[in-house]
């Protein structure tokens, strides 16, 4: 399997994980007693089958890639953790890890997208192609999170590894760290968390058992 094929398969990871998560939730709603590997493999196989269905000669996974070909590594990792936690009813990410993930998605999205889409004369997206303050900030943040024993820090480390291996279609570091869907979900998660905080309650992320 060459790198091009790896890149194409990786673009399907997030859609697959989202589908698996949806199927796992559907299993829960139906009241079926599927757990453990069963709750991982059955939804995983069905999701794979759906994504491999061809429409007009192109499999659904590649239709999705036509809209979003670069899946960020942290988001893919968080989805994988959510799928694993739901299947095995075991916590992998602490609440603090989830908070770190959603906060990173929201804050970096706020820093990147408005400027990259034309607000102001600075385009931070350019920083992802060569050594820049982005690498310094990400190195410091990742190191600090790992020192604090955050598993989300390990996802950021995986992102920079994937960047050097050029595992995505993009050669820009930003695309390994962030994607618009991750950022949008992060805004919603942070908003819900803040709203719960204001109301005095505690909201647990969906992936948490």
């Amino acid at each position: 399997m060459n790198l091009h094929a790896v890149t194409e398969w990786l673009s399907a990871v997030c859609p697959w994980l989202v589908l698996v998560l949806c199927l796992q939730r559907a299993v829960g709603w139906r009241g079926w007693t599927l757990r453990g590997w069963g709750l991982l493999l059955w939804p995983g196989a069905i999701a794979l089958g759906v994504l491999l269905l061809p429409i007009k000669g192109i499999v659904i996974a590649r239709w999705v890639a036509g809209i979003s070909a670069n899946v960020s590594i942290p988001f893919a990792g968080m989805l994988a953790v959510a799928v694993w936690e739901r299947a095995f009813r075991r916590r992998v990410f602490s609440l603090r890890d989830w908070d770190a993930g959603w906060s990173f998605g929201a804050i970096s999205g706020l820093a990147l997208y408005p400027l990259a889409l034309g607000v102001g004369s600075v385009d931070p997206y350019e920083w992802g192609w060569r050594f820049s303050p982005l690498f310094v900030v990400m190195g410091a943040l990742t190191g600090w999170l790992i020192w604090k024993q955050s598993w989300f820090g390990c996802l950021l480390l995986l992102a920079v590894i994937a960047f050097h291996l050029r595992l995505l279609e993009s050669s820009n570091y930003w695309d390994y760290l962030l994607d618009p869907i991750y950022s949008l979900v992060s805004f919603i998660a942070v908003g819900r968390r803040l709203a719960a905080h204001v109301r005095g309650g505690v909201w647990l992320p969906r992936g948490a058992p």
Partner: protein
Amino acid sequence: MMRPATRGVLILLTVALNGWSWLEGGAPTPGFVTPARIPSTGAAPLFHDEFINPDSPHQVSHVASISELPDGSLVTTWYAGSREGARDVAIYMSTRAPADARWSPPRAIVTPESAARDLNRAIKKVGNAVIFADSGRLWLIYVTVSIGGWSGSSLNLTISTDEGLTWTPSQRLTLSPFFNIAELVKNAPVALSDGGWAVPIYHELAGRFPEVLWLRERMGEIRATKSRMSAGWFGYQPALTPLTANRALALLRDDGVGKAVSVARTEDAGHTWSPPQPLDLPNPDSGLDAISLTDRRLLLAFNDSAKGRENLRLAMSADEGRTWARVATLAEEPGADFSYPFLMQTRNGDVHIVYTWKRKAIKHIVFNAAWLDARRTDTTQ
């Protein structure tokens, strides 16, 4: 829980990987390649016009580009179909060898189906394309859309080593963090001293602004990066015109209220640009093109109106774009549409322009400096 030793190793790995790009260092900044100065030879005025696709079966032909092959042959591309943005639109190519009297029959080189096959994803339509040549290859950058209108555009690259007979599988260029959309191309690139290209491109989503796409080959791989030319919301479709290795200007189409051609300047080979300033030339929100001629004058092709595309004129500047003088009218007809000019000067000094003629066909005009000079003396400045 991670053990302290594990954490230490992971932190070292983090520092090493994030610092690796610093160790790689940046390549020296390449300059623009400017056309070699060719003195006037006292040749007789030359002017010739023709249609490239006079018998086009398509309702619409639009967005032409032209380049010169090493043997002096000309190659043009444009898109054609039932209407702009239709699913049957394809990118066509035609060539003409120096000895040929006519252009070759148009041949589709990119269709939505071929692009979908190459890129392995759904492609709804194809659009603007620009062709250019180096010593042995033809490069084609073209727009595809998977979803939505032109704001959903992405850029793709394909290369031919046999003068356009066959093309490499297209490569998607990732140039935007937002679903990699809203990037388009219209005008010709400028060669760089390191063998790369500076391609003027533009962003078109919430606002419109000009950018430079940098193409460089590194260990057999083509790397694409981009930088912003200017902020703002109204100046786009830049025409990049080098003056020296480090200095260039970009003339911009305007979709704002000013309705004027604007100009941005760089002094550092395109890395930073001055804020665009309006020129005393109107622009009805239509495409334009400009080139540096071999005698160092600048030539601009534009719609000389703030309202429509009923004429296509040439203007020249002898002072690096500060003042312009209209020199010729290439087309003019009330209610007609003459648009999207694309200029090129060949190695023999002839200037070629291709443009959209009434949206039905692509017109090609060739003239020389003597013809321009003769026109200039005829024209009130």
